[in-house]
């Protein structure tokens, strides 16, 4: 099945994915509610993306005391009926990826559902479509492996790897327009940049 893959070399830690995710899921920009989180370990240098990987044998499914988390055998998706969640945090502590988030607006522990409604139209999840640097991809694990191998081979034969580019004003405008189209919520490019700066400051202080 397709999953969200992350390439830290192309991520400039602009936070667009986290803003878009919290907007589409909760209706407000709050990166702490985002189902995808870029982890940095005390700097603004991105290390990995914490997002549900829809494990083959998910620890959260066995951990959940209410039995509201299911692994769909045909699609491979891990889904949850979070209306019944009583917030025991068993899934949060058992998740090996750190993908579970407590969502105050829904009063439940939630994780990435790969933007299911979008995928019925054949589109990629919103965070993947919005990522200005192409650091997030929605792909099969074999494609991710081929890409990583090619990236390594290119670094062997050519001199410099590419630096991740911070999105410029035009790209922020595009992100803002895309959010307005998708969610119908007008997020000004300046506001988005302010959120990015806050995110970076929090990351540097070690969250």
């Amino acid at each position: 099945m397709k999953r969200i893959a992350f390439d830290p070399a192309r991520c400039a830690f602009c936070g667009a994915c986290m803003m878009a995710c919290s907007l589409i899921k909760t209706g407000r920009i709050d990166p702490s509610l985002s189902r995808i989180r870029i982890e940095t370990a005390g700097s603004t240098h991105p290390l990995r993306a914490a997002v549900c990987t829809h494990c083959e044998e998910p620890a959260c499914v066995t951990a959940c005391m209410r039995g509201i988390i299911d692994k769909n055998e045909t699609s491979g998706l891990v889904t949850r009926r979070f209306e019944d969640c009583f917030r025991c945090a068993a899934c949060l502590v058992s998740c090996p990826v750190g993908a579970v988030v407590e969502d105050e607006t829904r009063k439940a522990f939630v994780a990435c559902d790969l933007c299911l409604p979008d995928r019925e139209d054949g589109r990629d999840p919103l965070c993947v479509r919005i990522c200005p640097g192409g650091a997030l991809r929605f792909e099969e694990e074999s494609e991710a492996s081929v890409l990583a191998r090619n990236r390594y081979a290119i670094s062997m034969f050519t001199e410099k790897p590419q630096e991740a580019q911070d999105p410029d004003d035009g790209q922020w405008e595009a992100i803002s327009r895309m959010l307005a189209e998708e969610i119908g919520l007008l997020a000004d490019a300046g506001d988005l940049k302010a959120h990015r700066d806050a995110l970076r400051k929090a990351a540097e202080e070690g969250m």
Partner: protein
Amino acid sequence: MEGRQQRILYIDTQRCMGCRACETVCKLENDLPAGPRYTMVTEVETGSGSTERLNFLPVPCQHCADAPCVKACPTGALYKRTDGIVLVEQSRCIGCHECLMACPFGVPQFGANGRMQKCTMCVHRIDDGALPACAANCPAEAILCDTPEQISATLRLRYSYNAAAYGPFASLLRQEVIQ
């Protein structure tokens, strides 16, 4: 097991000609269906005009000394044998893909059962005292499997043969052309 030294797979990129014998023989040896590839030959184009060149690099598991995949594995399914070979215990794997995200070389593979599988440096052949299938079957002898000391000795020998045939800096000059 004490005293058994870390073996590595070394790729001599000056020799690889991209025939993909290693890929083919790896699939046969490990009985792999379509999908998982324990090794894969990558192609990189460099230079332009008279310096244009197509480079090949097979990418098997590097069996890192301080393997990021072993550190990333939350269930301890990945482990390092005393002789340095990184292996996976599939029954303990939960298919979380953390190893794939941690590996800088894109080595972890996932078959139909969703569990991680990877290059084993043909551990069954190593235990019988034979070379891994890719190293044994490379027609250009571009894949070497040995201890780092032994590989260094082989490479020095190759360099000295080149130097005797084409002059002392022949292989270095060619390296410049590659870059």
